[in-house]
């Protein structure tokens, strides 16, 4: 891979990183805390590439000018009075090849793949397909986890709700009005789950948290984002040994995908 081509890819890679960091698109892929680091990496790549481009073009320009001067000089030598017949050796030739040899990894071009994906068809946030691969059981809390008491009406993460509902048997939930936001994860039967993916570092480590929704007047399309307000319902002991969290709907409405699709 030629050095100038690398510089070109670097500039674009830097610009894309700065863009996804500024627009918040990066939240589809990694945890929120990484945003500033992406911007810094983007600026680093951009500056590195820009300096590289300027230097390489200037060097090529100089080489071309030197070659032209040599040709002009050779012409006067071969055609003018006292002509010499040996042509000048083009020094620029060696120069160019030296770089290609040292920077020879073709694999560098692969960096264009994520670049184009992000530029022209940014991958969507993980949705119902990824969620459908996971079971409906509530994620298990760390051993010895404690549950703080909640205000009577509050918003929780789907994961937090599911853990409290199943592993704390709803002790901190019963009698409360809880609001949850996630997407509809429908199944072949009438059962459907309000689902949200939990991401620690990046989407590769995503884990689904699901809450079975009961008493919804509408059946939402698969993948539709929904906000539910409702009350805790004890898990069905026959459903996966009672590990499926449930919520009884008081109010439910469709909503847009939140800026951060994960929690």
């Amino acid at each position, binding site marked *: 891979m030629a050095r100038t*081509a690398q510089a070109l890819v670097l500039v674009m890679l830097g610009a894309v990183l700065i863009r996804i960091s500024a627009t918040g698109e990066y939240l589809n892929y990694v945890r929120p805390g990484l945003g500033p680091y992406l911007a810094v990496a983007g600026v680093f790549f951009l500056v590195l590439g820009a300096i590289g481009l300027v230097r390489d073009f200037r060097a090529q320009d100089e080489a*071309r000018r030197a070659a032209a001067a040599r040709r002009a000089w050779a012409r006067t030598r071969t055609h003018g009075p006292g002509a010499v017949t040996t042509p000048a050796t083009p020094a620029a030739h060696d120069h160019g090849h030296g770089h290609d040899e040292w920077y020879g990894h073709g694999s*560098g071009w692969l*960096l264009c793949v*994520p670049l184009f994906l992000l530029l022209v068809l940014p*991958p969507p946030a993980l*949705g119902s397909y990824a969620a459908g691969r996971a079971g409906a059981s509530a994620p298990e809390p760390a051993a010895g986890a404690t549950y703080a008491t909640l205000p009577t009406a509050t918003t929780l993460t789907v994961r937090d709700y599911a853990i409290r509902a199943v592993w704390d048997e709803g002790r901190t939930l019963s009698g409360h009005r809880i609001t949850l936001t996630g997407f509809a994860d429908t199944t072949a039967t009438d059962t459907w789950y309000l689902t949200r993916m939990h991401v620690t*570092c990046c989407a590769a480590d995503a*884990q689904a948290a699901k809450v079975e929704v009961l008493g919804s007047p509408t059946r939402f399309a698969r*993948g539709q984002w929904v906000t539910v307000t409702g009350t805790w319902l004890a898990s069905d002991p026959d459903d996966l040994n009672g590990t499926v969290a449930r919520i009884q709907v008081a109010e439910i409405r469709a909503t847009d995908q939140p800026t951060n699709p994960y929690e």
Partner: protein
Amino acid sequence: MPEATETRPAGLTAAIALCATGIVAGLLGPQLLAGSGGDGALATWTTVFVSIIVQALPFLALGVALSAAVTAFIPASVWQKALPRHPVAAVPVGVAAGALLPGCECASVPVADRLIRQGVTPAAAVAFLLSAPAINPAVIVSTAVAFPGRPGMVLARVAASAVTALIVGWCWTRWTDTAWPSVAARASAEGSRWERFRLTAQHDLFQGGGFLILGAALSATLNVAIPASWVQSAAAVPVLSALLMGLLAVVLCICSEADAFVAASLSTFPPSAQLAFMVVGPAVDLKLIAMQAGTFGRSFVLRTAPLAFVIAILTSLLAGSLVS
């Protein structure tokens, strides 16, 4: 005009190829994604693939900045003074140095490469390569958060990773037949210090970056292809479960700051298997194997990866039996 055809292709052909690829991708890509239902296996694959790369790039940037700084600003004599003369004694220093670099796997590969080029004994650089992503403040904190009230797990993880790095490093003191990259690379010799910094950073970025993409593609494929239920079914079998979790760590390429949370979530597994996941992951995974193959060559990977895997599993089993 022979000179023009010799100097131009590098920049111009590249620009044309890039534009053409961009246009084709822009025209066909959305149709391809829509064809898979917008939220199907293909869309999930692209999301996981891009996520692994986006997650890795800031760490790769840190890594190449450090490796370039090592090359451009630190004279080789510093390493000769700082490290014990004998390779066997230099290995523990490499492990300890790794604990100070708060980076993921992607940062340590270019740094280790440049350390070797600067004359650091390869065994110590390998020890650094294995310990840097596994033992550092960020990883220790995240492990403690993932396993609250179980400091034994944090300790076991650090100990098992350190022992793995030590043993693999010491093995490399015996393997002296490998041809390492020459100490004085050509591009590092030209220009001012900043120019050397720039060229080294660019070179290392593309050397590691290309292979990072390959590793991410492979990992995303397996991530989408392996059903979660397969994993749970092996939880009860003692040694097999550790082996399986180790293999899973190789395949999934979860970065070392996040793997503790995934390991903790697989709570049906015994501690030894959870440890295997956290000790193998930072030492051997597809992304690392690809980057190491690109940087150090295939023979390096053929030796280091299997050895590190086996030792990581053994130390995890041992540490796990002490914890539980």
